[in-house]
């Protein structure tokens, strides 16, 4: 899923300072699962914003909504009938949701209420960790199912580097060395013979480096 976390309240208050009537829009997708932007977080944030604004004698009216997904036009359009009654939208969907709202509601300022962090997993309750950088050219079959691009701090393709100690990365003792994990997996899978294979320079064209990306599926667009 796409993992996000809340922006500091003060930052959001600063964004919406000029407004008195806003929509606070959550999303039932990824950000609900990672507890950053679902229905419950909409309620909590709305209360916090109202209280803060009451405290400075500048009350704020908030319409609390939670869209099925902010990354699909059909769900965004459900806001259409009442959007014009408000001065701005704070979205606590991911960065894609925030932008898609901005595209669809051209006359409304759209503010991000969370930071979008990474594509990751729930390692345990309340703890999420990155797994994928969306490079667009998956090589997990070569690396025991563990991604060197996302899991190695230097994204090296021939690791581990000299900074790997006791299974952790040189940058932080709490960061597992991605290449130690890869080597452990390759060994367990009896695939260590592939370790000494020289990997060609990776093409980053399929990653963000090639410019903004788009996928067109002719079978579906027709």
């Amino acid at each position: 899923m796409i993992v996000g976390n809340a922006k500091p309240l003060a930052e959001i208050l600063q964004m919406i300072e000029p407004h008195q009537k806003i929509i606070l829009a959550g999303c039932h997708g990824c950000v609900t699962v990672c507890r950053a932007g679902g229905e419950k977080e909409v309620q909590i944030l709305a209360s916090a914003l109202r209280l803060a604004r009451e405290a400075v004698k500048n009350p704020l009216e908030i319409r609390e909504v939670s869209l099925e997904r902010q990354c699909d036009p059909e769900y965004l359009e459900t806001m259409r009938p009442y959007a014009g009654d408000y001065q701005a939208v704070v979205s606590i969907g991911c960065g894609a949701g925030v932008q898609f709202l901005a595209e669809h509601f051209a006359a409304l300022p759209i503010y991000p209420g969370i930071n979008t962090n990474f594509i990751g997993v729930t390692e345990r309750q309340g703890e999420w960790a990155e797994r994928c950088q969306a490079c667009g050219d998956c090589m997990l079959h070569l690396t025991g199912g563990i991604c060197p691009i996302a899991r190695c701090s230097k994204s090296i393709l021939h690791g581990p580097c000299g900074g790997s100690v006791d299974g952790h990365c040189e940058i932080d003792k709490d960061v597992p060395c991605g290449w130690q994990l890869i080597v452990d997996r390759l060994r367990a899978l009896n695939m260590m013979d592939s370790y000494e294979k020289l990997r060609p320079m990776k093409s980053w064209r399929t990653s963000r480096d090639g410019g903004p990306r788009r996928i067109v599926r002719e079978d579906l667009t027709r």
Partner: protein
Amino acid sequence: MKAGSNLEKVLAAGHFAVTAECGPPRGADPEQVRKKTPFLKGFIDACNVTDNQTSVVRMSSLAGSMILAENGIEPLMQMVTRDRNRIALQSDVLGASALGVRNLLCLSGDHQTFGDDPEAKNVHDIDSIQLLDLVRMMRDEGKFPSGKELKGAPKLFLGCAVNPFADPYDIRVPRLALKVAAGADFVQTQCIYNIDKFERYMEDIRQRGLHEKVAVLAGVTPLKSAGMAKFMKRNVAGMDIPDEVIKRISSVGKKEQPQLGIDMCIELIERLKGVEGVRGVHVMAIEWEEKVEQIVSKAGLLPRP
């Protein structure tokens, strides 16, 4: 000869090579480099010029290399893949060769979180092994990775670094094999304090015959004090300083510790000279260049060829 550097010639002639290290200054004053040169000139075969080590911004390794060269010291330019993509790396390889640099050490570089600019983007378009392969291809095949012909191939004697003390140990020799396959002509090791472990590493290198394909230059750093030893053990990832080394440097008063550190370094070099496959030493006297002559001389490595 692949590049015709002094270091390459010294090794080819079968001499025990000596390299040292010089970190460029944190500023634009060339005097800071020049003033170190009398401590090094004539005592070593080539001098590493670091590339923003520990991610702290310094004068570029190319500029530092040129200042050394002007002062009669052969530079061994370090190049990390942390800050430049393949376009900039290739361009700087060409520029360095054009200006007369003949030795290049290919590294990935310390992560930027260690330096003064932890907010910097980390590039890592290619890794250090791919950089070796890239420069080897440019040098030996006269081609860019795109396949386009070079107008003048770079002449660079290619090196890499290894840390025999990092984890997991069992991939350390296979990873060196990868670097050799990619194009490493020589390798400089992380500072050795745990000589027993290093000897085991060399045994594993010999078992694969790698010592015949790559010149191993054993890294040594004289300890200035017991405090330095403890600090490095605690804070430098992959630095293996056995307790008996710390005990020994702590056995004398603070005033005597620098000289004991130098004596211990000399003893270590004497022992390294006897390890089959070790073809030289890399003396990293960090901000202590003035001691290089004493170390090299007392280790019986002067005059240089």
